[in-house]
């Protein structure tokens, strides 16, 4: 049984059929990536998994439990968190308070402090800026914060929505290195990316989404070698 599986998911935004019978799954310990163009439905899929967008039909199973109708704030407590598209850091709170909000569902103060320090080790820039309002951070720093914040709930599965979006290439490499490290520490990663090259280089398996449908599904290395994928997403 997969740790996370999405089965035949249909999602509508008003009249728009955003996801059409999408099925994806992630096994414990994997990095799985979803690639696809703008508007393919990647973000919608992650939002539906997290309970932010209701599913019309189909279901989302997490560790054997149907979470399709579980409200977003309860899903976090089950062990599944998300770093959303556009980062959505709490601009009016300091870096440290953002991390504290990431651990909102937890009560173990010592453990929270420990994890916060671990995040500062993983992202030393956040330590330098811990008292700063997060709205004043650079895009790359906000992205690090968004990922760190998502990890503060000690998730077993983390959804990362476009961590490379609008970030300097050098920082992107840093961030991806850290994603690998996070995964190595035992967190399953479902990674949505437009930067297919980077995503496929760290993932074990991948899905290609086009206009709300999964059109390809394979091991990452094979997807990276696939002619159609190369032409459409890897620049030739």
């Amino acid at each position: 049984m997969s740790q996370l599986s999405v089965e035949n998911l249909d999602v509508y935004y008003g009249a728009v059929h955003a996801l059409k019978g999408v099925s994806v799954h992630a096994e414990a310990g994997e990095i799985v990536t979803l690639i696809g163009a703008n508007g393919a439905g990647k973000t919608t899929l992650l939002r539906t998994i997290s309970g932010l967008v209701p599913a019309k039909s189909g279901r989302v199973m997490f560790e054997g439990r149907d979470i399709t109708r579980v409200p977003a704030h309860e899903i976090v407590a089950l062990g599944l968190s998300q770093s959303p598209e556009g980062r959505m850091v709490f601009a009016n709170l300091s870096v440290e308070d953002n991390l504290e909000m990431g651990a909102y569902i937890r009560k173990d103060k010592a453990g929270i402090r420990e994890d916060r320090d671990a995040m500062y080790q993983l992202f030393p820039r956040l330590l330098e800026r811990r008292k700063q309002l997060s709205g004043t951070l650079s895009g790359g720093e906000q992205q690090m914060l968004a990922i760190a914040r998502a990890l503060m709930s000690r998730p077993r599965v983390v959804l990362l929505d476009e961590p490379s979006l609008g970030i300097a290439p050098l920082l992107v490499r840093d961030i991806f290195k850290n994603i690998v490290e996070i995964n190595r520490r035992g967190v399953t990663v479902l990674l949505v990316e437009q930067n297919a090259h980077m995503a496929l280089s760290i993932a074990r398996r991948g899905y290609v989404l086009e206009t709300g449908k999964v059109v390809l599904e394979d091991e990452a290395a094979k997807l990276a070698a696939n002619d159609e994928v190369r032409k459409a997403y890897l620049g030739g």
Partner: protein
Amino acid sequence: MSTFLQQLVNGVTWGSVYALIALGYTMVYGILRLINFAHGDIYMLGAFIGLYASRWFNAAKDPSPVKALLVLLTSMLLSALIGMIIERLAYKPVRKSPRLSALITAIGVSLLLENGGALVFGEDQKFFPQLIPQKTIALMAGVSISNQQLIVLVVSIVLMFGLRMFVLHTRTGKAMQAVSHSHMAASLMGISVDRIITFTFMIGSSLAAAAGVLVALQSPKIEPYMGIMPGLKAFVAAVLGGIGNIPGAVVGGLVMGIAEVMVTGYLSPTYRDAIAFVLLIVILLVRPAGIFGKAVTEKV
């Protein structure tokens, strides 16, 4: 000079009442982008609950500071519950509707509270018992403060300071800030946005109720429509300070109170109510985001 200082003392006291009411407007706006037009009526309910509470505690015949405190706390607590019920019954059902629906709902709730109040309490003025007999304390030659004013001032400062500590330093307070920034991101943290919203209404309502009781302590005539004008003015105060901004509401309230008292003292009491709206027009022309409000620049 002493006249001016005396006016200042009166203005700050009166302004702290506006500040307490303005806090509720600004907090609810911060979290829901809703102007809760029924908020001034909670101030009225606060005064009436205080009136009934002083009867229960037999505080009119046998007044004491302890009883006055009990009356204040009872009013704050029950008003918080009323705020919760209003939020659940009136605003929650329209939360996903266009913002105009919520605004119209707020106006509806306001009318309901005013006319419901007239029905239940009667339209005529009621007299709030004198829980604390008035004494005058001389501050310096020609400047004095009454013990009632002092109580208003002290209680307001304690409440505002408490609110600030709560919002900045507790987990729930930070969650309120998180929700005011983004409902979606907050729920991704495991924060129950619904609960935070309800809680915000409760806090705002209890502060308005405190304002109602504090005002009734010094000017004891209360009636079901007493919340309209102070409500409007506190709303202007919130806009003045920058709506959604908590320190802004306090400063806006103080500016409003001082301006009113000064206008009354130096120009004419006739212009007392007008000054609020003059201030509103000026701030909207000069600095629409309010004194503390600034367009938050977010890097993307």
